[in-house]
């Protein structure tokens, strides 16, 4: 198992984690632990949200940048960690 797969496996074993998606900076899927339909819908939404948030943060203060985004919903918690060459999205089930 590669270092990459090993790290994914470890994250996935955390309590409540139901999905991990890793995309590159263009929004192309590098790895996903969920089915391809769910991956596609989540990726489209989360990538857009992350880009919009990054742009807004920079507009408020051009020397600032987004480092972590957390959405809490009634059903789950979505964590988004953007980096220069990738974005990691983790979905944690709350039920």
């Amino acid at each position: 198992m590669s270092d990459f797969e090993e790290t994914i496996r470890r994250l996935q074993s955390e309590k409540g984690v139901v999905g991990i998606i890793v995309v590159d900076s263009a929004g192309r899927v590098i790895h996903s632990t969920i089915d391809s339909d769910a991956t596609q819908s989540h990726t489209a939404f989360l990538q857009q949200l992350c880009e919009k948030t990054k742009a807004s943060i920079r507009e408020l203060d051009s020397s600032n940048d987004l480092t972590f985004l957390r959405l809490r919903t009634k059903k789950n918690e979505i964590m988004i960690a953007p980096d220069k060459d990738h974005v990691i999205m983790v979905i944690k089930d709350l039920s």
Partner: protein
Amino acid sequence: KSQHVQTVQPLSDEEKNRLTLDPEFLDSFNRSCKVIGRALNEDIDIFINYTKDPYEKAVT
């Protein structure tokens, strides 16, 4: 109700492999996973009131 879903050319398995073995990619990827791992392990659920709470008074 409809939404434009941007379609991007998917990465080939070769490209995925190249990326996930790249030391620079792995370095920032592992750093991000550490942050997420810590966020997942926070023991406080901010939506559940476990303890005496200074904000309690105003509600009841």
